[in-house]
């Protein structure tokens, strides 16, 4: 009979948990995901790697809702994501059943992170190979929130963050360009950030917007294309403005 008491995640002599670090490598290979928190809007944008022609793209939803007021996007092993998302959805309903109140964003983030941590300290299992971006509005105060978890089980709140492929470049961009935004401006900022590393076009990005009143709304390809066109126009105008005084001087 197989014995599941052999831990797979053990300390190295210099204090590393290599399995967790390898899991983070898996995350770094996953598709880029960006989350931006505005004052009344929170946006998740995820890179859509080119869909095979015969695949029904509607069956590959990268941004999912956990409850009416909470949504999640992730980078890394999608199969692991399914398991985590399912557990989180059950927990959202179970919490509502016992407490009679919807979960707070922090609670469900702590739950998911706790689950990820458990799998770094149990026998016979490997860590989940994904980092999540969790967004939502506090059910009582209405404050927007964005949280990130990673395979080690740590979590923290962010104004804007990225995970997955090239997340460092995206985070750099966000650190340079983040301002308090609201409504459509938040959507633009998220898409601009993602376009730093992704080929532009509605076909390559999946965007979802969460507002307190309407909950989660997935943007249509046409809407995304419109915002991308806006962004390109702004970029072109900024380029033109930079070039124009230079030529005058020469």
């Amino acid at each position, binding site marked *: 009979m197989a014995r599941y008491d052999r831990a797979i995640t053990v300390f190295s002599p210099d204090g590393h948990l290599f399995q967790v670090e390898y899991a983070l490598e898996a995350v770094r290979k996953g598709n880029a995901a960006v989350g931006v928190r505005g004052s009344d809007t929170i946006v998740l944008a995820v890179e859509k790697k080119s869909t095979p022609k015969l695949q029904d793209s509607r069956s590959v939803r990268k941004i999912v809702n*956990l409850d009416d007021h909470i949504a999640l996007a992730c980078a890394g092993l999608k199969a692991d994501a399914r398991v985590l998302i399912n557990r989180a959805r059950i927990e959202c309903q179970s919490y509502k059943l016992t407490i009679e109140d919807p979960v707070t964003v922090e609670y469900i983030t702590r739950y998911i992170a706790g689950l990820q941590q458990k799998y770094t300290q149990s026998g016979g299992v490997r860590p989940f190979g994904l980092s999540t971006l969790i967004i939502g509005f506090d059910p009582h105060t209405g404050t927007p929130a964005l949280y990130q978890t990673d395979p080690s089980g740590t979590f923290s709140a962010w104004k804007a963050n990225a995970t997955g492929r090239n997340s460092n470049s995206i985070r750099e961009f966000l650190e340079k360009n983040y301002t308090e935004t609201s409504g459509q401006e938040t959507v633009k900022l998220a898409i601009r950030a993602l376009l730093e590393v992704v080929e532009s076009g509605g076909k390559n990005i999946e965007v979802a917007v969460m507002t307190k009143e309407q909950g989660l709304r997935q943007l249509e390809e046409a809407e995304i294309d419109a915002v991308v066109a806006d962004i390109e126009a702004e970029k072109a105008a900024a380029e033109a403005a930079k070039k124009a005084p230079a030529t005058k001087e020469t």
Partner: protein
Amino acid sequence: MESVFGLVGKDFAIVVADSSAVHSILVHKTNEDKIMLLDSHKLMGASGETGDRAQFTEYVQKNVALYQFRNGIPLTTAATANFTRGELATALRKNPYMVNIILAGYDKDVGPSLYFIDYIASLHKVDKAAFGYGSYFALSMMDRHYRRDMTVEEAIELVDKIISEIRSRLVVAPPNFLIKIVDKDGARQYAWRESIKDAPVAAA
């Protein structure tokens, strides 16, 4: 002592329940809501042991919500009825729920439907159903006056006739009733029929 009944109309279904919460000889309150909204287009009226009623209907409601989040589409009324019956059946020979249920729902392809689910896990799809001592009067009135494809006004007229019979003929008749309706626009409260008014209290 508790009465719950329901009927199917032209493109809607109605569930009516009394609203008294009674413990032995004491009436705790007369504005108890015993008809739970399971989701946007489903109503579950329940009668029986108070704790079981709340516990079981809330459990079904949360599972209906979970299904929707997992699958992106709502459960059909038929599926919900079968799920509910299954849960009652599983618990029956260990730790039974003493709850009688009338489930009403509206599905786009099927229209309105009504299900009778009793505490020993019988399931019947029906046009009209009733539980409790009031069922003696409700079923008789419905047998006499119910027709397929009634309009909302006609159905409410019948409901009022039934309530009037229960009030006049049942020795410990509940004073107040709550009527809820479900149609293509969703499930919602339709009206109260009160003969005693409780002082309003914030919900638990």
